[in-house]
C-alpha cells in the first residue's frame, strides 16, 4: 500500500477532514433534531480522527502517538454519546420534544 502515498501528500487529507468537519458543523447549525445534532458531532469528531491518523502517517518514524490520540478520542466520543443520549431521553421524557429550538431555558 505504500505506493499510494508517493503521489499523495498530507494536504489532501487535511482538505478531506476540513470538508467533513464543516459538513458536520453545518449539520449542527442547520438541524433541529437533537439526535441528528449528536450524530453531526460524531461526524466532526471523526473528521478530526482521520486527520490524526493521517498525521501519524505523515510523521513516520514508527510513531504511534497520532493513533493513540484517535483511540482516546473514540473513548471520549463513546462516553459523550452515552451521556448525550441519556440526557436526550430525559429531555424527551419531560418535554415530549427533541427539537433544540424549544430548549431555550438558558434565556432566563
Amino acid at each position, binding site marked *: 500500500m505504500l505506493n*499510494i*502515498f508517493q*503521489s*499523495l*501528500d498530507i*494536504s*489532501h487529507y487535511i*482538505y478531506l477532514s*476540513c470538508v*467533513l468537519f*464543516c*459538513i*458536520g*458543523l*453545518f*449539520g449542527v*447549525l*442547520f*438541524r*433541529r*433534531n437533537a*439526535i*441528528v445534532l449528536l*450524530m453531526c458531532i*460524531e*461526524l466532526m469528531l*471523526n473528521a478530526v*480522527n482521520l486527520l490524526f*491518523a*493521517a498525521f*501519524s*502517517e*505523515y*510523521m*513516520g518514524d*514508527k*510513531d*504511534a*502517538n497520532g*493513533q*493513540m490520540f*484517535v*483511540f*482516546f478520542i*473514540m*473513548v471520549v*466520543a*463513546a*462516553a*459523550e*454519546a*452515552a*451521556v448525550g*443520549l*441519556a440526557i*436526550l*431521553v*430525559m429531555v424527551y421524557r*419531560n418535554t415530549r420534544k427533541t*427539537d433544540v429550538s424549544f430548549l431555550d431555558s438558558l434565556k432566563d
Partner: protein
Amino acid sequence: MHITNLPLPFLILSFITILCALYVVTSKNPVHSVLALILTFFSISAHYILLNAQFLAIVNLMVYAGAIMVLFLFVLMLLNLSKDTEPVKSNLWGVAAAISAGLLLVVITASLQKSGIAVMKGNSPEIGLVKNLGRVLMTEYLVPFELSGILFIAAMVGAVLLGKRDSEKQDLLQQNDVQENA
C-alpha cells in the same frame, strides 16, 4: 498536483465519505441519517487501512458503527422518532448555517495554502497493529488509559442516573399522555 493525478482508491473513498456525510446532514428522516453515518464510518475505516492504522479501522467499525450507531438507532426507535417529524427550518437558517460553516471552511483551507505541501513519509505497516499499539498504550499512555476507564465509569453512572425513571412524576406524565391520546 492536479486532482486527477491522485490515486484512485483515495479519490473513491473520499467521494463516498463526503457524499454520505452530506446525506447525514440533509436527510429528513433520522433513521436514514444514522444509516448514512454508518456508511461514512465504513469509508473512514477504509481510509484508516490506507493509512496503516489497521487496529483503528477495526475499532472504528466496532465502536462507532457497531456500538454507538446502534445506540442511536435504539434511541430513535425508543422515542419513536423515525418519522419525518422534524419541523423544517426556514431557508434563511439554511443559508446562514451554510454561510458560517462555509466561511470557516474557506478560512481554514486558506490558511493551509500558506503552509507548504509535504509528501507523507509513510510508516511501517506494523505500526497500526494491536501488538504495537498495545505496547505503547500500556507503557507511555498508561495513566490516560486508566483515566479513560474512570471516565467510562463516570459516564455510565451519569447515563444510568439520567435514564432512571422518577417513578411518581413519570406515572403522572404517562397518565396525562393516556388522557391526551384517549
